[in-house]
């Protein structure tokens, strides 16, 4: 009796959750596979790709500038407080630069672009879905993946590394500004420490990560928008889910990539 009343509903709910997760993962995988196949088999629209690079990249530049600059400044300040206690302030430059190039630069870029451009992609595609614009493209023999999805995903993969590179530069400069102008550290110590301990592969791993994040956020945003349903409320829900899911996925993927790239 207890088994029937307590265990069965829990097992049923758990089973349903697992099934819906598998369904969502399967649908997303098929979506990405179809986008990849379209990208390989059909000529991408260059003008649409450039328009999306502008929307995702150029229009996100100011956000990336502010995020990179202030995260570098705050990180340098916090590091200074800690390192002052153990007497290692001459190493702040390398710690700030390593953290920003390997981790903070790409991750913050991914998160900010997911919030700014990812939400816009979901809302736009979601609106097109509920107003039957995507169905209209299909009936006009225009492949919606080629026309809508592939340019966005390609733009994300191409633009995010550039944005991350700018974010890294602004972050390191922010750290320099904080350490040298406000905390009294000598420029030689800050720059010398970076030269001694930061290697090109640190920057390259950050850029690679950013490319992967660009793929993740545009794929999730496009997927959520493409399959949005339920009118204006449905588009709102899809947009929220898109930002949350892409942000969480970026953090999970970051963890996996850090482990994998750490071996190289």
């Amino acid at each position: 009796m207890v088994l029937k009343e307590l265990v069965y509903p829990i097992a049923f709910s758990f089973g349903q959750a697992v099934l819906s997760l598998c369904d969502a993962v399967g649908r997303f995988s098929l979506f990405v596979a179809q986008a990849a196949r379209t990208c390989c088999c059909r000529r991408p629209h260059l003008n649409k790709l450039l328009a999306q690079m502008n929307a995702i990249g150029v229009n996100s530049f100011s956000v990336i500038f502010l995020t990179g600059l202030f995260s570098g400044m705050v990180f340098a300040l916090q590091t200074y407080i800690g390192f002052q206690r153990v007497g290692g302030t001459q190493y702040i430059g390398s710690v700030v630069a390593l953290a920003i190039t390997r981790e903070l630069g790409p991750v913050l870029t991914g998160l900010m672009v997911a919030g700014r451009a990812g939400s816009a992609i979901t809302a736009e595609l979601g609106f097109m879905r509920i107003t039957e614009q995507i169905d209209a493209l299909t009936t006009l023999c225009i492949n919606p993946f080629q026309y809508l999805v592939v340019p966005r995903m390609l733009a994300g993969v191409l633009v995010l590394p550039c944005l991350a590179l700018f974010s890294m530069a602004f972050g390191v400069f922010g750290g320099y500004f904080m350490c040298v102008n406000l905390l009294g550290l000598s420029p030689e110590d800050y720059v010398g420490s970076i030269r001694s301990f930061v290697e090109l592969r640190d920057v390259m791993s950050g850029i690679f990560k950013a490319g992967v994040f660009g793929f993740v956020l545009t794929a999730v945003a496009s997927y959520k928008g493409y399959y949005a349903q339920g009118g204006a409320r449905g588009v709102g829900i899809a947009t929220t889910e898109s930002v949350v899911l892409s942000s969480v996925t970026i953090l999970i993927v970051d963890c996996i990539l850090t482990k994998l790239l750490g071996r190289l």
Partner: protein
Amino acid sequence: MDTIELVNLKKRFGSRWISKGINLSIPAEQMTAIVGGSGEGKSVLLKMIIGLLKPTSGRVLVEGTDIATLADHELDNHYKKFGYVFQAAALLDSLTVFENIGLPLLEQGMSRRQVAPMLKEKLALVNLKEECLKKYPSELSGGMRKRVGLARTLVTNPQIILYDEPTTGLDPITTRVIHNLMHSMQQQLKLTSIVVSHDVEIFNYADNVALLQDGQIRFFGSAQSVWQSNNPYIYQFIRGLAEGPIAIDPGTAEQAETRVLPSKFWRRKPSCRSTKTP
């Protein structure tokens, strides 16, 4: 000769059956109106005919080919035969009217200069002026948007046009303009047209009428015979009666009893004013 044949067509969303075995033959080069209540699956039926939705079971034969079995690349060829006029026109907001109408041609690689004369020709067919080519959909009225949608459909020279509630939300004058336009297209281009509508005025323009009720076709006949028909479903539907085989929820029934029927109907069939459901 029948262009489209639906054989025992069924469609289910989750546990709800929308279509419960539709059998219908749609004659070529004629206008067939599919009428029915809201939520009866008329738009779903159109989307199954064109291939946007796959039926759960049954066959959609278009010129003898079962489109439910076609692969994606084969569907592309199938779409070329069709034009689809969406309920809200489904124009792309980010494109001008020129780009919207010319989209299928521009995507095939044609230049704007090559496309322009073809667009002007189609624009004239739907009674739109050239000035509107530079406008965006948000700058157009509802009727103009529908006409732009129709022009976009015509630009690919389809053999079959599907209209999904083409006059919903339009005033009576614009409704008549759109109906006349559809009729003249039909006459000039010898198209096979399928019109999904709530509006009984479509009977003045259509050759055939099908009534979709409870997932099945309850009536199919010529548009002229509709008003004389004793079929209880079409009788109740066109007269807007609360009593009859078409079940309506109690709230709607109360409204229906006090509803003023379309003036068009009273003009055409004044003797029906006191008629009761058989």
